[in-house]
């Protein structure tokens, strides 16, 4: 217990410096600003704002990135409530009842409850990280190359299994991501792979290009394909104060949502989406009058929003303790840490405690900032939402391009981003999700390195992955997950094929 207090005080002493507070605020602000824009989710937001952090020292950079992440989630809920457009996939659920509340003139309380619920979830999440972080990191020190490889396999498999859409196409996207990550100079042999004689490629493909191209440009082009009819609830925001009844009705959902979110957050995959959907289903089942759901039931906002923030918070745990990213957002964080010269893993906690605990403390500070500062700024976000998309999107493209350019002061990254934009556009059109590709891209070189090392140590014995207990355990879980997902699909598809041929 005293250790926990010691760690947290170290963390807060770092987080509460004027400089870090300012960076936290800038992150929250920019994150909310971009997150509010419809069609731009947290991944795209972080990808776009990432280059800003490159010039900062590591601790403020990561603090700002965390702020951007929460800001983007918060912005996403704001858009969901006011415009019925989910700013990100987990806000889809908030749209259902949140938007209805908005139409009834109760957008204010909806926004307030969303913020308060998220804050509660964030606090719980921070405490959990602080409590379980150190023991998990200690466990990770037992890991050898084989364990790391198997863990990455498990991470990739779970990320795919829990995502929506075609499983096999998602696996293909992971493989392509791994391949793209390999482009560049091979550390072992010094040979430049797939560089096509272009010197910029011999250092590898910048992940900013991939992220901005697939998530930024790809999404913008897809957005432009759809129509531009949006009914905005902006004139009816009114007072932000929730009533006593609101608060009482939200308490249960907030606590339950936080619990659900915490569990889902630690598992690899699209934790925030599943967390918010499960919370909505749970609350609807538990409600005395389920028919209110879909027409503006505040539990339909309180539960999912808390679940989604709890999941967002706890999803940092595998990253900060084991060094493994469990989703596209965490993949970006890994990229950012690598660029800052920090190798993510359990050693971060021991070698750079002020960075580690400072970041955790500032996650909580960021949650607090979002409640205190952003709620009064609602008016500003509302004005922002009134700007027609056709005026906004060129500006977004511009900032993406400048961001990509500033990585190496070279147009090569911009060209690459453009190419990935085309790729991302067609890939999603054909039902292939970009998230798994980004995850594979970040893990590619790491997986290869660990595979090589494991094989070297075991002298070519490939069964080493199964003879070492932890590694074996993880691979078994991975295979198990694949089986339980593939089986129903095979049965379903066999049924479809049989049905078709019976015509």
């Amino acid at each position, binding site marked *: 217990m005293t250790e926990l207090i010691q760690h947290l005080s170290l963390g807060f002493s770092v987080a509460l410096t004027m400089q870090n507070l300012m960076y936290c605020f800038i992150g929250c602000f920019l994150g909310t600003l971009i997150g509010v824009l419809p069609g731009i989710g947290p991944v795209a937001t972080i990808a776009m704002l990432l280059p800003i952090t490159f*010039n900062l020292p590591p601790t403020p950079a990561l603090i700002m990135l965390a702020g951007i992440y929460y800001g983007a989630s918060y912005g996403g809920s704001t858009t969901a409530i006011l415009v019925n457009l989910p700013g990100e996939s987990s806000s889809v659920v908030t749209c259902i009842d949140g938007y209805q509340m908005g139409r009834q003139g109760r957008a204010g309380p909806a926004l307030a409850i969303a913020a308060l619920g998220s804050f509660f979830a964030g606090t719980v999440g921070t405490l959990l990280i602080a409590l379980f972080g150190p023991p998990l990191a200690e466990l990770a020190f037992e890991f050898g190359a084989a364990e790391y490889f198997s863990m990455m396999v498990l991470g990739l498999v779970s990320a795919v299994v829990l995502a929506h859409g*075609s499983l*096999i*196409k998602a*696996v*293909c996207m992971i*493989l*392509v991501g791994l*391949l793209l990550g*390999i482009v560049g100079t*091979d550390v*072992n*042999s010094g*040979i430049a*792979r*797939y560089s096509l004689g272009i010197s910029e490629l011999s250092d590898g493909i910048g992940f900013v290009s991939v992220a901005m191209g697939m998530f930024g*440009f790809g999404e*913008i*082009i897809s957005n*432009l*394909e759809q129509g*531009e009819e949006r009914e905005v609830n902006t004139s009816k925001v009114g007072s932000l104060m929730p009533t006593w009844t609101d608060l009482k009705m939200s308490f249960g959902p907030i606590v339950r949502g936080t619990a659900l979110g915490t569990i889902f957050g630690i598992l690899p995959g699209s934790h925030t989406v599943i967390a918010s959907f499960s919370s909505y289903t749970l609350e609807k089942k538990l409600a005395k009058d389920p028919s209110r759901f879909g027409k503006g039931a505040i539990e339909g906002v309180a539960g999912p929003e808390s679940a989604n923030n709890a999941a967002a918070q706890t999803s940092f745990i595998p990253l900060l303790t084991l060094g493994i990213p469990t989703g596209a957002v965490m993949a970006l964080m890994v990229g950012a840490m690598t660029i800052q010269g920090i190798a993510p893993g359990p050693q971060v906690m021991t070698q750079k405690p002020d960075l580690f605990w400072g970041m955790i403390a500032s996650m909580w500070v960021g949650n607090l900032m979002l409640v205190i500062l952003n709620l009064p700024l609602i008016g500003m976000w509302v004005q922002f939402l009134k700007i027609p*998309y*056709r*005026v906004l*999107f*060129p*500006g977004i*493209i*511009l900032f993406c*391009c*400048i961001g990509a*350019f500033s990585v190496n*002061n070279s*147009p*090569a990254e*911009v*060209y690459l*981003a*453009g190419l990935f*934009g*085309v790729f991302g556009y*067609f*890939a999603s*059109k*054909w*039902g*292939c999700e970009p998230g798994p590709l980004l995850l594979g891209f970040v893990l590619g070189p790491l*997986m*290869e390195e660990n*595979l*090589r090392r494991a*094989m*070297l140590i075991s002298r*070519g014995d*490939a069964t080493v992955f199964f003879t070492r207990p932890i590694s074996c355990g993880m691979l078994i879980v991975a295979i198990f997950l694949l089986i339980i997902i593939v089986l129903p699909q095979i049965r379903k*598809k066999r049924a*479809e*094929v049989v049905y*078709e041929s019976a015509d």
Partner: protein
Amino acid sequence: MALKIRSMKDFSAGLMFIAIGGLFAMGASQYPMGTAVRMGPAYFPSILGWGTVALGFMVFVESFLVDDEKPTPVKWRPLLLVIASVMAFAAIVNTGGLITATVVLIITAALGGHEFKLKEAIISAVLMSITVWAIFDKALGLPFKLFPWS
């Protein structure tokens, strides 16, 4: 027997993955394979590449067996103009300067939107140029060349 494509999405995706996987796998053949103990640079990419080809082929075959909704039709204008604006920026920024690249990007991209209003685009380009100058040149002091004559 005429094969009917039941899922255009899977058909296209399958071909795409076969192509990408194949390119990487064949590209790997120019590097040494090494052994399982000392993996050469071609080892991992070959496995991944051929794996992608195999899975891509499965997706391709599936496209004849399982129905799926049609992909939304490609709208060429937003696609081409957004990408053109990005490429133009990349081409211009070092020679013509940041401001020139900004103006070209904003106007080209705006052409890709729903309704193009020339006055609106020009005002937007000017405002964006001022914002860009203020943030990147004045506030952050980054070494960007601003104009062709800078």
